[in-house]
């Protein structure tokens, strides 16, 4: 919308003299480049001198830290000389904030690369089709598979979303559209609920569902525990998404005589659809790796049990958690394979969520277009 608007504005002004030239506020001058690279090189030389010759310590990390400190000192002094104290402080703050921003990303990449590197080479196709029935602790790490765990995870997460997604979105609708008397305390409760430690959710289901109601450990119990964790996430993110729907749309619908129900179901929810789907998928990506509540609820198994309503079941994270603590090399390697699959699963979900979330509310999918064409609307 805005881009087309800009384009038309630009088109009309093209034949006139372009008086407006955008001022660049962040212009890097050649002096800055020279100062920075000079500081970097001299910091390198200085830290080499100190680190290798004067101090009795060694190690890559120490060297890097040393270099970083020297670089900051030298470049700040240089900027101070050139531009004065205010600019020097600005420069120092900028370096720190850039470093901090990068510091959040580096471990993420390290984690992903490490887990993928550890797990991929013992992954065989049968990991997705076999269970651990005929596998002993000493058999080769490529034997058997985690199909039982994958099935368990999918069923548990699926059941959990069946419970939590409708409940969560309805609660979000209550918070944002109905906005009744309960809305304020409800927000506090949802916030509090999202802080419930995952193990406590597991304990709760164990206490309520298994001890008090006399059920057994099975997939359903696991999915209930996951649902407790899933619900606040869905509610909070959906509420944010619903809040982004412009109030003008709501008012337009109401002014045209639409009832609340129609406004919500025909205007608000469809507008927020891609956001809601993103919220749900991101929630699933977070719940799918939960281990702690499942330790207490699903029981764990080494053989296939495709019925979540009876008998102990396994789940992928629990599978990894159990096997990684075995002393045998092959078992540990099996756990890494499981961890690899889990990470890939999370990554795929994440990418799907991003792809859908990137679309605007006016995006028309191919199937929608076909539907509209059939009705003769597009």
């Amino acid at each position: 919308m805005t881009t087309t608007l800009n384009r038309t504005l630009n088109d009309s002004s093209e034949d006139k003299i372009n008086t407006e030239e955008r001022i660049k506020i962040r212009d890097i001058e050649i002096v800055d480049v020279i100062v920075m690279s000079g500081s970097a090189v001299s910091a390198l030389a200085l830290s080499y001198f100190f680190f290798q010759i004067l101090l009795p310590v060694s190690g890559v990390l120490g060297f890097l830290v040393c270099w970083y400190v020297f670089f900051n000192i030298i470049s700040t002094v240089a900027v101070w000389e050139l531009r004065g104290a205010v600019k020097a402080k600005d420069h120092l703050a900028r370096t720190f904030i850039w470093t901090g921003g990068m510091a959040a990303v580096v471990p993420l990449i390290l984690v992903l690369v490490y887990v993928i590197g550890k797990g991929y080479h013992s992954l065989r196709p049968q990991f997705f089709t076999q269970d651990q029935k005929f596998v002993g602790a000493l058999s080769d790490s490529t034997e058997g598979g985690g199909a039982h765990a994958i099935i368990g995870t999918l069923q548990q997460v699926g059941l959990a979303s069946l419970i939590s997604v409708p409940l969560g979105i309805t609660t979000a609708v209550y918070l944002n559209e109905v906005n009744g008397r309960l809305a304020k305390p409800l927000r506090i409760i949802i916030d509090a609920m999202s802080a419930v430690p995952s193990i406590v959710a597991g304990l709760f289901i164990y206490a309520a569902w298994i001890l008090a109601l006399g059920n057994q450990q099975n997939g359903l119990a696991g999915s209930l525990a996951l649902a407790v964790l899933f619900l606040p996430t869905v509610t909070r993110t959906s509420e944010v998404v619903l809040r982004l729907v412009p109030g003008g749309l709501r008012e337009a619908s109401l002014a045209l005589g639409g009832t609340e129900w129609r406004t919500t179901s025909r205007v608000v929810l469809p507008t927020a659809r891609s956001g809601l789907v993103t919220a749900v998928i991101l929630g699933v990506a977070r719940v799918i790796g939960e281990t702690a509540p499942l330790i207490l609820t699903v029981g764990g198994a080494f053989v296939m049990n495709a019925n979540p309503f009876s008998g102990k079941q396994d789940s992928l994270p629990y599978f990894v958690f159990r096997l990684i603590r075995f002393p045998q090399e092959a078992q540990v390697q099996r756990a890494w394979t499981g961890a690899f699959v889990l990470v890939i699963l999370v990554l795929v979900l994440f990418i799907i969520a991003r792809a859908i979330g990137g679309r605007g509310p006016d995006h028309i999918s191919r199937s929608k277009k076909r539907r509209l064409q059939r009705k003769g609307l597009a």
Partner: protein
Amino acid sequence: MSENILSEGTPVTSTSDVLTPVVRRSRADQIFRGIATTASVTTFILMGLIGTFLLVKGYDALRVAGWSFLTESAWAPDQGGAFGVAAMLPYTVQIALVALVIAVPVALCTALFITEYAPRKLRRILTAMIDLLAAVPSLIYGLWGLFYLQPRLITLSKWMADHLGWVPFFTVDDQYGTSLGLFPSSTFVAGVVVSLMVIPICTVVMREVFSQAPAGEREGAMALGGTRWGVVRDVVLPFGRGGIIGGSMLGLGRAMGETIAVTLIISPSFDAKWSILDQGSNSIAALIALKFSESSTFGISALMAAGLVLFVITLIVNAAASTVVSKSRSGASTEI
């Protein structure tokens, strides 16, 4: 929130002579409201049930232990011995604090970087990265921490113990001197790993608050010749103080409840100590995960009581945090 004239039964002004709008809802709307309200009431009930059931099932153990549950540091409910959370609780807090000491500065920088410094393209990538950081399961962080980080981190632990030993938390008293074997499975290692899970939580809250810093004041500071850091220091940070505090507290709540990563890394210890670098640590969540499968009915009741303590603490921390954040948050709605 949008002012929804039709849905509000209360008069807009407080003067009594203004007519209260008469609201006539259609049948469909009544049902719609009913369903939405039921869903929210369910959430209330669920939250109440969590506390109730932990209390009911932990009552047996609490009755036996009494107040000593908070002062006793041993854990032997199944052997008929004393049990309490006096060792776990300090360890839980220590791990969370280590995590916060690392995570808060990083999250602060990241949030400032995303809102103030990063070029547009990098900003989107970084936001996605932070979301991904939150989506990676804690199990994966635990595995990474155990196999990759710990062997590397203990050299740092040793260095800190050798050179910064005068700081009370870093004192490691070992009669044979420090060796690398002394440092794995420590509070410090667990805290570093947990910090990775805290960073996204803090960052998201801080970023949201920073991005709401009033544009007028921001531009005013710029127009007065302020540098970017000047704007950050004098406009963004003062405006976002609530978000910084609240975000950190949310992180604290999350860090204290973190289970699997801590379980994988620590080796349980039941004597609280000040030093964070040497072997042996504990946390309530990890205790529950470790002891659950080997506990009798009474042992499980004791674990429920421990879970209740953890539940109450995270609840208090989180309630305080969300109060701080919501106070600092201004008009958050979008209107056309």
